[in-house]
Structures are given as structure tokens and as C-alpha cells.
């Protein structure tokens, strides 16, 4: 395969530079990114000041990203930035997209805000970047922020979907916690975990019964033991569970609903 590529791309050009670069490009096009990165490196090693060197640096950065080597990609991007090349913006955008894919939203946001701050008056480009920021806010379930970004990028479909998302019925963790404080188990049932709720109600009821029985028999040591070993644990645990379950139920719902919109961006 590689030999074939060599023959096709190599023989029609005479210079070493174009031979190397076209070989690297062909490796990139057949998605062998590890090898293409090596070839771009080789090109840059032999011809660091060639007129195509910035192009090679951009492709090297992209190859590193595809080969999942972000540290090296960042290093290449740094070199590209030093040359004030127009390719550096492409590399930065690619890095931002890579960070979004790998859920490293903080880094992605930094890159995109930097890109926006240096962007020309080209409104189309700024809109695209804002759309990316909106996608990040969506993945972080920050719907208000996402709405702001989508307004800036005037993306009507996404805005409509955000309105729907904001209207989604969500469980209040506070209410779940209060419910379980008043009657253990009810908060869990409210959050959708019926069997855990019933279980919590039963174990709490049993330990209260035990305490009452011991107090009636004037057996205060037993009552204290049941209280400290069983009841306090079950009671506090039930409250905490109700709170966690409500949060988790919201997150699951958001994740399910935002997935469709986020997928449409990719």
C-alpha cells in the first residue's frame, strides 16, 4: 500500500521537498496518522525554513491530534504561533475541537475565547465559534449560558431546543431531602427509586420500633445502641440518598435529552 502511494505521489515530482510532503499528505489521507506525523516531522527536520513548512506544521499538529498525542500537538501549535502564520488559527480550532471531544471543556473554552478575541470582523466565523461555546455549555448542563451563546450565533433550531430543555420537569434535590427528613423513604420514592424508598422506610420503622420497645422496658442501653448503630445511620443515609438520587435523575434526563442536540453538532 505504502509502496503504491510512494510510486503514485513520488515519481511525478522531482524535488525532495514535494516528495516528502506528498508522501506525508497521502499517509494523512489514508488515516495513518502516526506515520504521517513522522513524515511531517521528517520534512520539518530537513527543511525547517521551506515555504511549505507552516503547512507541514499545521498538518503535523492535526496528525498528532488524530493520533491522540495532544501534548506534542500543543508544542507544534506553539511553534506555529511563533511564526505568525495564518495556519495557527486552524491549529487552534482543531485543538479546541479535540478538547471538546475528549470532554476537556475548560481547555476548549480557553482556546475558543482566545480565537474569538483575535477574530476579524468576519461575523460568520464568530458565529461558528459561539456555536461551539454553546455546545460546551450544553454538555455542562448550563442552559442559560448555552442560550446566550446560541443567541449570539443566531442558531434558531438550537434555541428552540434549549427552550424545551429548560421546561423539562426536574426533581428538586432539596425537596427530596426534606421529604426524607419528615418521613424516611419518601424522598427516594419522589426521586424515582421506589424499592430503595420502601426499604429505607422499613429499616427506619423497625429501628424506631426497637427503640420504643426498649424504652418501654426501661432498657435504655439497648435503646441507645439501636439508636447509635442502626437508626442514625439509616435516617441520615436515607436523606443523603434522596438528595443524590434527585440529582442523578436530573443528570440522566439532561444527558439523554442533550445527546440528540450535541450529536447534531458532530
Amino acid at each position, binding site marked *: 500500500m505504502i509502496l503504491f502511494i510512494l510510486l503514485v505521489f513520488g*515519481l511525478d515530482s522531482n524535488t525532495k521537498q514535494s516528495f516528502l510532503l506528498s508522501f506525508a499528505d497521502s499517509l494523512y489521507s489514508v488515516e495513518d496518522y502516526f506515520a504521517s506525523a513522522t513524515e511531517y516531522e521528517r520534512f520539518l527536520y530537513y527543511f525547517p525554513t521551506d515555504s511549505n513548512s507552516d503547512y507541514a506544521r499545521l498538518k503535523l499538529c492535526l496528525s498528532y491530534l488524530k493520533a491522540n498525542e495532544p501534548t506534542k500537538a500543543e508544542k507544534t501549535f506553539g511553534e506555529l504561533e511563533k511564526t505568525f502564520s495564518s495556519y495557527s488559527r486552524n491549529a487552534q480550532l482543531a485543538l479546541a475541537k479535540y478538547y471538546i471531544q475528549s470532554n476537556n471543556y475548560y481547555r476548549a473554552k480557553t482556546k475558543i475565547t482566545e480565537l474569538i478575541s483575535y477574530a476579524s470582523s468576519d461575523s460568520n466565523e464568530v458565529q461558528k465559534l459561539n456555536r461551539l461555546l454553546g455546545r460546551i455549555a450544553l454538555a455542562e448542563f448550563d442552559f442559560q449560558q448555552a442560550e446566550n451563546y446560541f443567541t449570539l450565533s443566531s442558531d434558531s433550531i438550537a434555541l428552540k431546543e434549549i427552550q424545551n430543555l429548560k421546561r423539562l420537569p426536574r426533581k428538586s434535590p432539596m425537596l427530596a431531602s426534606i421529604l426524607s427528613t419528615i418521613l424516611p423513604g419518601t424522598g427516594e420514592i419522589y426521586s424515582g427509586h421506589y424499592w430503595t424508598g420502601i426499604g429505607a422506610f422499613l429499616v427506619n420503622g423497625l429501628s424506631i420500633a426497637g427503640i420504643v420497645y426498649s424504652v418501654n422496658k426501661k432498657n435504655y442501653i*439497648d435503646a441507645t445502641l439501636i439508636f447509635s448503630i442502626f437508626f442514625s445511620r439509616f435516617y441520615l443515609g436515607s436523606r443523603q440518598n434522596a438528595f443524590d438520587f434527585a440529582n442523578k435523575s436530573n443528570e440522566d434526563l439532561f444527558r439523554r435529552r442533550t445527546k440528540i442536540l450535541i450529536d447534531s453538532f458532530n
Partner: protein
Amino acid sequence: MTADRLQRCNPSAWQYLGAYYFGLRDTRIFDPPENHYLLAAPKPDLSAMNGHKLRVEIEAEKSRSAIPCPWLFEPVNVQNFADYLFNSHDFERACAEYKRLYFLSTDKRIKKYAQLMMGESYLANKEFKNALLTFSNLDDSGFIDLKRYNQARIYLELGEYQTARQTLFLIKDTNLLRLTQILIGWSYFREKNFASGAMIFNSLTDDSLLNNLIYFTGQNLSKRSRLISTTLSTILPGLGQIYSGRLGDGLYSLLTIATTTTITLYYWQNDQSKVKFSIFAFLTGLFWLGNIYGANIAARDFNEYQQNNYLAKIEEILNRIDLKPNYQFLLTQ
């Protein structure tokens, strides 16, 4: 063991993070039980690998006809680029380039250089198995000591200190003498045999950096006896832990066992059926046994922690030394 773990599960555990517990999971301390087995787990057997029929990594030379851009495949160019990759710490790609150099070159010495650097790249990339195979594939003639030295470096990384030393003692090449001595000393240090390690560096006093190592004899290393720790906890729960430098664990254990003992004594007098008495007596016994076990482990962990800290100080010095022999002589002649 469970009883020991239950008692160690207390707020003071956070103090011991990094010393006796390693890692966090979901904002909690992550502490797998295998860290606290009384007997250490057996090491994987490497002898099987040594006996393994050496895999020839690179195919024999093939015809070099029909190369479209000969300049690109000139060994000297390939070698320069490979060295550049190696020096910029891109070891995986450097290794591939050295393989290319090995394939393209007709000079035996350059071939050897390529092979050695291939091994170095594997070693730097922490692919010890491949590195060992590459160095073992090395043609013996004239380079037997270099081969042994490199094999020993890998044995050291793999934790095979005995084998590493056995290999190192065979080396006679005077050029490698200094590095060999360093590796022998290092292997003793890694085995926590600090006195022997420091003694090795006594003969290397002309080096000001290595001169510091002769003081690391391990004499002033604080140590706790496992027997004393266990005995103390048998007499009074928690005392062994306090002796082993874990005040929080000790007090918590004392509190736990004191409470269960009090309840047991109370039921001994007030419970006719003796059911509750039996339950609490059992619990007390269990916790006490767990505490004794814990005291033993605590003394061991204390010693290990002290030794590891000591070793870290030593390795801070040793890591500054470049263990890679100079292979340039293969290129110049």
C-alpha cells in the same frame, strides 16, 4: 482483616494519605485490601521470558531496488533524523526510524548502533520486554559487555535485582566500570540494603555527586519492630498503632474496643439469657484480633514508608546520572 479495616476507617485516615494510603476515588480514600496482606503477593516469574526463544525483530536485508527517492533512504540522513527524534523524547517514532536505519545500512557498526538505540528507545518508552529482547538479540562479538550492561539496566527496572547484579559482575570492560558500579549500588539501594549500596559508592569518591551517596548507609533510618508493635496492641488495643506513629488510628481503636468491652461487661451482669453478652463478647474479640493484625501491618507500613522516602532521596541523586553509554564510537570509525 475486616475488623482491622473497619477500625482504620476513621477521620484520621486523611493524615496518612500518601504515606500508607495511595490514591483517591470519588473523593474517598482508595485502599485496596491487597496493600494490607500480611504476606506479600508473589512476584511474576521472569525466568520464563528469559528462556523464551529470541524473536528476531527485523527481517533480513531485502533488495533495495526501486527506491524512488534515494536521498531519503541514505543511512546517514535516516540516522540524523532518528537521533533528532530520540533527543526530542519521541521514543516510539525514534524506534521506528532506528529499525529503518538497521534495514537500510550495510555497515555492520552502524547496524549495531541502530540496534542499540532501538533498545534505548524501547527502554525510554518503558517497553522493557521489547528492550530486553532487542538487547539480547545483539551480536556478541566484541560487544558482550555492552550487551550485559544494557540487560542489567532492564533487570533493574523490572525489579530483578539479583539477576541484574549477577550480570553486572561479569562485565570486564573498563570504559563501563563506573556505570557498572553505579548500577550495582543502585540495585542494593532498591533492595533496601542501604549499607551495601553505600559501600559500593565508597569506591567512586572522585565524583562529587556520587560522593553524597556514601552517607546513605541507612543507620539513622527510624524503624519500628513488628513484634513489639503486635505485643503492645495485644496488651492494650491501639498502643501498637501509636507506637508505629499512627496516633489517630490508635486512639480510635482504643475507643472502639473500650466501648464494646464496657457493653460486654454490662451485659455480663444484666443479661440473663447471655445472648447479647455473647454477641458483644464476640464483637470485642473480633475487633481486638483485628487490632493486633492492624498493629503488625502498621509497623511494617511505617518501615516501608521510611525506607521508600529514604530511597527517594537517594534516587533523586541517581536519576541525574545518564546511564546511557556513549555509542558514538560506533559511528566515528
